[in-house]
């Protein structure tokens, strides 16, 4: 009995550690509409699109960026990675553009499922979701340096 409990304990400990490890390794994937021929996007262009500095895909064609929810871990790490800016600085950046009438921030939706819905319904959309959420409704693209 003792052995069973001890083994159960070890198992659950392992499960917790595994879950923790998979969270830490959770990879963000940039996705576009399946009809979009693009397969790669330079990191610099991605950052420019999400700061409103670029309004088109690098190869041309209007781009409609989709954002995760403000304050979400997904969004914070995305902006940190591709623009080097904290949440507060991104907010301040968009306040300047928006309240001078020079551009509106990307459409904001809550969670990977909602991002996929937006991207799947608009050939000009781009979004970012967790690797584990990728399915046929969207197409992953590789971010190049």
């Amino acid at each position, binding site marked *: 009995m003792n052995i069973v409990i001890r083994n159960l304990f070890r198992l659950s400990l392992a499960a917790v550690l595994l879950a923790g490890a998979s969270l830490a390794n959770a990879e963000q994937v940039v996705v576009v509409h399946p009809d979009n021929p693009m397969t790669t996007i330079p990191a610099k262009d991605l950052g420019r699109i999400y700061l409103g500095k670029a309004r088109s895909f690098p190869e041309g064609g209007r781009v409609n960026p989709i954002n995760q929810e403000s304050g979400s871990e997904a969004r914070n790490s995305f902006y940190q990675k591709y623009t080097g800016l904290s949440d507060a600085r991104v*907010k301040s950046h968009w306040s300047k553009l928006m*309240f001078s009438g020079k551009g509106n921030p990307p459409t904001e939706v809550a969670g990977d499922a909602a991002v996929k819905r937006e991207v799947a319904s608009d050939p000009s959309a781009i979004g970012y979701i967790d690797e584990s959420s990728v399915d046929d409704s969207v197409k992953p693209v590789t971010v190049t340096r």
Partner: protein
Amino acid sequence: MNLRLSVSALAAAICVAGPAQAAIENINFNGFLTVGATVSDSDVPYFNGNITDDVGFEQDSRVGLQISADINPKIGVTAQLLGRARDQDYDAVFDWGFVSYMASDAVTIRGGKLKFPTYLISDYFEVGYAYPWIRPPQEVYFSNPLTTLSGVDLLLRAPIGNADLLVQPYIGTSRGQQTLVPQFAQEVNQAAGDAFGLAAPGEIDFVNFEAENLVGINTSLTWSAVSVRAGALQTDVKAKDIGVIDADEAKFWSVGATLDWQNVVGYTEYFEREIDGLANLGFPNQKGWYATLGYRMGKFLPHITYAKLEDNDNPDDPCGTLGGNPVPCGEPLEQDSITLGMRYELGSGAALKFEAQQMNTENGRGLFTGYEISPNGNVKTDPDEVLIYSIAVDVVF
């Protein structure tokens, strides 16, 4: 509160218009709000008379609402309602609004009532959340009383190497109000045989003016950490209140730069203005500059600003005649100030700010626009040194 009425009326109008205007997509409502309190150690009112030695909320408190809608992928409309505590209890005004046509990624044309692109942050001057200070340095930002322009502009964008270039030519007309230096206005009024019908002593005089044939250009070059801008404009000014019926020419130019590199934040700007003829009385030749340096430490951004407003070779008297009497030129305002400030991020979309500003006036007037009659009947001159403390919360939503 009129704002609430206006907003609900507007919302109702949009709802009514909604079904008929099914083509409109992406209607965005956004807003900003600042609640600020100020107190100075001088009983002589500063600026537009809203900062005194009583704790007051009039100078900085304001609320704005922005509506933008895409008519189609190329055409959009954007408008902003603004209610300021200093304008009769938040009566909302239509601050600006325009229709824009994006011909391409590189070319946008806008028409309507546009925010005047005089300085680095003129575009979003009312949105306190978007800059570090509570009040952008007045020694510079006070110098162009034009805040909006009725007309047309072009936004021409091009990438140049690692930078983004913006060239913005504009043309139109404008109108506004400028406060007169009251002590000086009284002197001139007497010299001109009481021609101006000034307000009672202790009250603030505003000069209404019109700017016609207004043409100018605003350019900026933005890298990831550094941005530089330069602009110039020319206009014909009429101010009937001070007898300027034939337009006098005004010229204005300014340059500036911002830095946002790692944790270092910097802003600096310089301007010069020149006004000929009788209009010089209300708008003397001035020049000024400021520099701000800040260092971001987590949620805190402490910053320091030095700012200076000076005479820009104002011409010798007289600058014209009124009713046969010679009218002197305006008196340039001179002051400098040091401001210590702290901005603290209250989560995303809100900031708390403190500032202490030490002002020194060169000729005892500076930007102090009020004055009082002392018990013995003499006009109290403005103080040489004044301290102003301010606190504000800025929110965007």
